[in-house]
């Protein structure tokens, strides 16, 4: 049986991302290790409390030898445009989460709105990654 363990997002600054995901979103640190044998590569993974099996790895955009300068610039450009990655979240109370996250300074792209599938809203992390937060309705069978 296959399961999703980790998904990865590029971030401009791992410390800034760590503060956002833990202090603003309220997620937990799942792993935070720096590996000297990999050029001080830092594996930093976070995830929502109560969903132990799935983590998001917050990866700094590497330079040489992992990425050449042109590729790195491409990734930064895509991140700047909000096209580098997206995470789709669900919640049981989107209005409460929206108010709480907004009060903590999260940058929302859309307030909660009714959709055919439920109520959802959109926000970004400090690197511009896209998030949707949805309270889903049960669809008729």
């Amino acid at each position, binding site marked *: 049986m296959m399961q999703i363990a980790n998904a990865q997002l590029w971030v401009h600054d791992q410390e800034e991302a760590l503060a956002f995901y833990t202090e603003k979103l309220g997620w937990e*640190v799942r792993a*935070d*290790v720096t*590996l000297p044998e990999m050029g001080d*590569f830092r*594996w930093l993974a976070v995830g929502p409390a109560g969903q132990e099996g799935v983590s998001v790895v917050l990866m700094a955009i590497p330079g040489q030898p992992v990425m050449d300068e042109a590729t790195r610039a491409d990734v930064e450009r895509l991140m700047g445009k909000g096209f580098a990655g997206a995470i789709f979240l669900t919640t049981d109370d989107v209005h409460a989460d929206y108010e709480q996250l907004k009060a903590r300074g999260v940058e929302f792209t859309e307030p909660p709105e009714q959709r055919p599938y439920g109520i959802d809203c959109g926000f970004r992390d400090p690197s511009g990654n896209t998030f949707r937060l949805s309270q889903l309705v049960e669809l008729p069978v």
Partner: protein
Amino acid sequence: MAFVPPARHLLRAKDLADARYAEPLGVDDLARAAGLSRAHFSREFRRAFGEPPHAYLLTRRLERAAALLRTTDRSVAEICLAVGLQSVGSFTTSFTRAFGRSPTAYRATFPPASLQARVPMCVWRAYSRPSRQHVSRRQAGAAGAA
């Protein structure tokens, strides 16, 4: 108005402790979340969940600290602050009482966090390669020596 069982208010306080343990949260904040006076709240919380609120908050922090000791390479002092505690001395005492060994000794009973992180081989391969510049310099050096 819909009936709300009293424990629902207490659950709100418990959820707050679970969610915001990393902040300088105290029993007063939990009582406020439940909408009760501090003394009344402490009694009711204990009755509902079997332990006083300060003990619940502390054990939540210690549980999170234990997870960070296992899964990160952060120092004990950093972990202490990360779970909302201010004094490393008190943290060490509480941790030792709860887990039977000090934070450092507890960490030593587990494999290193770098192993537990299970960094995938594709990442290892990508990040462990020496940079091209470095290799070129060495090759140039070798060519010069030949």
